[in-house]
């Protein structure tokens, strides 16, 4: 697995070969508050970088999750629907989808861990 890279919308992606594992950061999860529903995509869906592919519903509001890179969704973590608390940085439990990347270079300009932390602190 590669190191996590982050978007400014608080998604993370970690790349292994041509597969990108995607989740949201602990910061995003905490900001959402009490989670009540997760609207997950269908396997096989093709997304472009920046597309909304899932929605987290909290008591407060609905928050979109955007694809950090383009490709086909090849796996969906269905277990999250009942265990939404697992969302977050923990890649083993908290991943949302795996995307077969169509252009792995798209993640080059995402934020690395240090840059993301700086972004949060700004």
């Amino acid at each position: 697995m590669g190191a996590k890279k982050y978007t400014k919308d608080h998604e993370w992606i970690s790349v292994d070969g041509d597969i990108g594992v995607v989740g949201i950061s602990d910061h995003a999860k905490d900001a959402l508050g009490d989670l009540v529903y997760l609207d997950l995509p269908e396997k096989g869906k093709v997304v472009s970088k920046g597309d909304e592919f899932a929605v987290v519903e909290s008591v407060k509001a609905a928050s979109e999750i955007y694809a950090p890179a383009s490709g086909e969704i090849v796996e969906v973590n269905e277990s999250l629907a009942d265990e939404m608390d697992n969302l977050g940085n923990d890649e083993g439990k908290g991943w949302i989808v795996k995307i077969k990347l169509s252009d792995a270079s798209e993640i080059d300009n995402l934020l690395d861990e240090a840059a993301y932390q700086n972004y949060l602190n700004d």
Partner: protein
Amino acid sequence: MQKTPLHESHLKAKAKMGEFAGYDMPLFYEGGVMEEHLWTRTKAGVFDVSHMGQIILEGPEAMALLHTITPSSFVKTPPMMAKYTVLTNKDGGIIDDLIVTKITDTKFFAVINAGCKEKDISWIDENLPDSVEMKRLDDRGLIALQGPAAEKVLHEVLYLDILQLKYMRMVQIDDLYISRLGYTGEDGFEISLPAEHAPTFWERLCEHGDVQPIGLAARDSLRLEMGYCLYGHDIDDTTSPVEADLAWVIGKDADEFIGSKRILDELENGASRKRVGVMLTDKGVAREGAKILSSEGYEIGVLTSGGFSPSLQKSIGQGYVPPLYAEEGTEVLLEVRGRQIKAEISKLPFLPAKVKTATSKKAG
């Protein structure tokens, strides 16, 4: 952005602030919406509602004015009794919903929505008889204390004699106007007081172990569970009180009020749509704007409010549908992001109100 007299107290309590009706208001505090909601249902929550407008209408024809601008009757209303009602426009739509308290036959106290303040006041001014004076109480704050422990708290913290105060009644103690009513379905009080005293009053309440401050987000989920209307969402300039299922505010002999033509006609012949409760029977959350479809998939209406109910742990909402679909238990679908979620028409309120009375109908 405008600030209420309690703005500093919210910042001190580390509230997440946000804009509402031109005011910088607390949306939630450190515990979050879910905890605040459940706290209010089990203990007592204190809410800053100082952004709302407070006015006095006083003069020989004050009651006649209210019989013109609202469909309600205040003739038999005893002194110091509050009523929920609506201001109606010429087309029978709702300009605002409000609580009017009869102090005497010639003096009334009204609390109007923050976002409607200027509109309401100029509308009332247009209809104001020469003998009636309208006074804005912009120098007063408004604090709501809601929940099963509210009575105990108010008694213990402020030694106020409110144990005998009945639902929808007001008492004046020194410069406090204390009304036993609210927007949560719980027993509780709204206390109008001079702005300069509001922070001390607020902090004393918050020091009580059964009290937590509650933000606007939980205020919204609490009122949604009770099926209360949020102005600008569930009711507006186009919805009539009959459509909004608020026909109970219309006085028995009401006839010459503004908008009466449409409203009385709908009262007699029925309206083309009705406000109903909707409960999701499948997973998901449907919010304002979600289309309501018949079980065959035809669009029949739209949700005007919606969200997750912390008490029921289910998603609920309200919206307008034709009478044919308004019956409790009717299966419908809600369209959320292109997906159809199963739901059914539900009675309102979603939870039984626990206000302090056996005879009351509904709170405002």
